[in-house]
């Protein structure tokens, strides 16, 4: 009897063939493996948000196992001695238990909070990158809108999340949130009463925030993020201009293996940094704040950083109450404008921006090449204006702390914020616009006359001139000594060592890594052409 030999080496091949028979995966898989991604450090900012979100999901699931989303009054009897015997809500007691009585609970809580802060920060920085480089232009307007929605949904996720522990600080935040809802004209009191299940604080809000925070909002985030990434995949990533890069191609690396490895490594690094922060840096020490009591507050009550701009706008708002003398008399409280109207305007402006710009420039073509911020001074200046506006508001959100630490009058800080909010954005616009023009001009100068060499030459008549290294040896058509180069939308070398004039930098941190072999062995492609011989630095004599 002959036993069939079991050929170990054939197993992968056979399995693959079997799988492909059933799922016809070979072609789509090849496309996926081969997909080309352009690479630049600024394209990784969105990834930080994505990776933080994954960490949020992981740590968040852990926290749900121990958190009790109830406002039932209990008497604390856990490990943390200073609060023992204090009546508090079950939510606060279980948050304390996560911090003190669950092994490893504190690091999970802190990682969750840090990851949330990082998530929002990465979203903002990513959004700035997309804005300033014009990556939002057609065909990517949809993704820009989804991205700006992600900020606001993330904002809600963060707010509902930090309200859950029901500590003294977050309870104050919740109180302000209820006042904001209350300030909406006509329906305010109904909205508040319906959300809180009666008068503030009621007994149900933590349970409602909990289901919003662990199911509804994350569900929405996952959906939006999936569409966001799907569109990046479908529309292919934008790229910077450069040699060989056109509006119709993507120049970069195939997804596997190098690009995917780098992404995987980067995820681990982000995860690692969050772990370090969660372990080493205290965040939201709820046990110091005590349970929420409606009559207790302390100075320097600040929300998480991404909420601070709204806190700031609220502080700067003048006390303009609008009475409406109909019937018994109605009123629009001043709180309504900075907390409901302002975010509404911000959402509308950011959502509409791609369309406004396209309309203004009458530019309805598709753009896959990015722009350097300096090349679009108006947009860059508008962005700087927005940033200035945001920074003034955020700083004003901490104006009491600034006033305290720097011994400034609190009222002066408020007035500085009010004036700054009106003066700084236009100033930022002007300064940025001029900076962009200056940078553009410098680029053109270098292209026309060459790089400064630092070599000073004395002419026979005694004058000193600086020698420039022209970037092009070509003769100009008008008989000038050198041709003018076209600006290509990408970095213009401005230092001699960028031109290879100073010999290549020696690589390696502690000792030099050996030079690559003369002709790199490439299995498929003919050896890469050697670098053109270095040109001698011209003496500048040929200059006109």
């Amino acid at each position, binding site marked *: 009897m002959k036993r069939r030999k079991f050929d170990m080496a054939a197993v992968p091949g056979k399995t693959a063939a079997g799988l492909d028979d059933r799922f016809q995966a070979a072609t789509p898989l*090849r496309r996926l493996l*081969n997909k*080309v991604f352009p690479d630049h450090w600024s394209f990784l900012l969105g990834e930080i948000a994505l990776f933080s979100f994954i960490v949020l999901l992981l740590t968040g699931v852990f926290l749900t196992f121990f958190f009790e989303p109830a406002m039932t009054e209990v008497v604390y009897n856990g*490990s943390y001695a200073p609060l023992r015997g204090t009546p508090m809500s079950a939510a606060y007691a279980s948050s304390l238990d996560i911090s003190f009585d669950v*092994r490893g609970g*504190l*690091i999970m809580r802190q990682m969750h909070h840090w990851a949330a802060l990082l998530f929002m920060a990465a979203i903002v920085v990513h959004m700035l990158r997309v804005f300033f480089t014009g990556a939002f232009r057609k065909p990517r307007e949809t993704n820009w809108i989804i991205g700006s929605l992600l900020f606001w949904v993330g904002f809600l996720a963060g707010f509902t999340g930090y309200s859950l522990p029901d500590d003294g600080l977050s309870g104050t935040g919740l*109180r302000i949130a209820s*006042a904001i809802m*209350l300030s909406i004209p006509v329906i*305010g*009191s*109904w909205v508040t009463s319906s*959300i809180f*299940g009666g*008068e503030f*604080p009621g007994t149900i809000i933590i349970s409602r925030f909990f289901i919003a925070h662990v199911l509804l909002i994350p569900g929405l985030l996952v959906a939006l993020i999936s569409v966001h990434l799907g569109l990046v995949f479908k529309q292919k990533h934008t790229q910077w201009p450069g040699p060989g890069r056109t*509006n119709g*191609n*993507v120049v*970069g*690396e*195939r997804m596997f*293996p*190098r690009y995917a*490895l780098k992404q995987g*490594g980067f995820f*681990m*690094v*982000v995860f*690692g940094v969050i772990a*370090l*922060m969660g*372990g*080493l840096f205290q965040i939201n020490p709820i046990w110091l704040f005590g349970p929420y009591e*409606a*009559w207790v*507050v302390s100075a320097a*009550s600040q929300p998480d950083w991404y909420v601070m701009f709204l*806190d700031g706008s609220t*502080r700067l708002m*003048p006390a*303009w*109450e609008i009475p409406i003398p109909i019937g*018994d008399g*109605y*009123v629009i*409280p*001043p*709180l309504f404008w*900075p907390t409901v109207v302002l975010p509404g305007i911000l959402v509308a402006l950011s959502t509409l921006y791609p369309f406004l710009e396209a309309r203004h420039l009458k530019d309805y073509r598709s753009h896959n090449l990015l722009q350097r911020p300096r090349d679009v001074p108006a947009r860059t200046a508008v962005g700087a204006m927005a940033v200035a506006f945001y920074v003034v508001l955020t700083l004003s959100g901490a104006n*009491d702390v600034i006033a305290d630490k720097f011994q400034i009058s*609190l009222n002066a800080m*408020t007035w500085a914020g009010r004036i700054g909010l009106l003066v700084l954005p236009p100033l930022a616009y002007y300064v940025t616009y001029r900076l962009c023009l200056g940078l553009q001009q410098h680029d053109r100068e270098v292209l026309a006359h060459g790089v400064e060499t630092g070599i000073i030459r004395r002419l026979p008549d005694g004058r000193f001139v600086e020698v420039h290294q022209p970037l092009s040896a070509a003769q100009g058509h008008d008989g000038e000594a050198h041709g003018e180069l076209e600006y290509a939308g990408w970095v213009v070398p401005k230092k001699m060592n960028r031109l290879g004039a100073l010999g290549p930098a020696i690589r390696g941190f502690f000792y030099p890594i*050996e030079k*690559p072999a003369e002709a790199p062995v*490439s*299995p498929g*492609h003919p050896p*890469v052409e050697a670098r053109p011989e270095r040109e001698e630095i011209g003496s500048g004599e040929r200059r006109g």
Partner: protein
Amino acid sequence: MSTHTEHQAQQGREPLDVNTPGLTRFDIVREGARRDDIEIVHYEPQVVPGSKAERRLTRTVAAMFLLTGLAATAFLIIYIWWPWEYAPGRGGDKWYTPLLGVTLGVALLGIGFGILTWGKKLLPKEVSIQDRHEGAVSADDRTITGQTMLYMADELGVKRRPLLGISLLAGLAPVGAVVAAPLVGGLISDPHKNNQMFTTGFAPAEGGQKIRLVREDGRPVRPADISAGGQLTVFPGIEHGVSNRHADSPTLLIHLRDSDAQESRRNNEREGHGDYMWGNYAAFSKICTHAGCPASLYEQQTNRLLCPCHQSQFLITDNARPIFGPASRRLPQLPIEVDAEGYFVAKSDYTETVGPDFWERP
């Protein structure tokens, strides 16, 4: 696949037969890339196989991976054996979370940088160019899809049979409302139930009995309990009066100095609140009329009350009028007196609405 062949036809390139003997694996990879309209234009190994640099990089990556193993093991050991339970003072448990963070962080950074080094330094650098095919959306395809959809609409015949469309809409609209009804109906809650927005815990009890002002621990307050210039947070002396169930009731009872009290009384009288104070004592709602935070920072010298949330400032001697910041409405004053036993009571509930402002506040 038609787009590929078209594209290849444009480029005038015959697809390579991948079964040709003698092809290297890279030949097949490149052919695959070409079928996806990718041209690998540059493929440069970064290290020479067997070179010193390669060996060193390999060692570096391996060291990072081993560091990960080490740190992860340390994490587990600390997680299991380190004394973690909270104890007052500077015990070893204070190091538990930082040590977990450091070991976990190092483990993850090790694997992260290991993978990054592997990918960035050991794998060949490449430049590939892929076509975007943006202009390749064929006008024919648009026409076909558009016509197909219009054809389907024709088949449904809503235009010829408008009753179908109308009845479908008429049928579906209530279904949409049915979906929303339980949610809205379940959540909605009348804000004016029991007049809750306009009353506080200080509303006199059923028999008209006046409510005492009590401290946090429930003890009633005598005038002698507060020295001149001092202040005390008081609550309605009813069941749960101190708890969050009466979140709008916390009140600041202030013992004004003589001169301030006189000014305060004058201003009270001007507002028709002449009898709201008792002696030199005045009581104001602690809930800020701006956003509901407790306006609790009392500046004795200037008689200002500052809300730490948004820096609204109220001048106590002038009926707690807002003098700075975003608040637009004064803090309501609680009319107080002293009962037969010598304790503070509220003469009546607040006569103005307590707490943040809203639309229908009269």
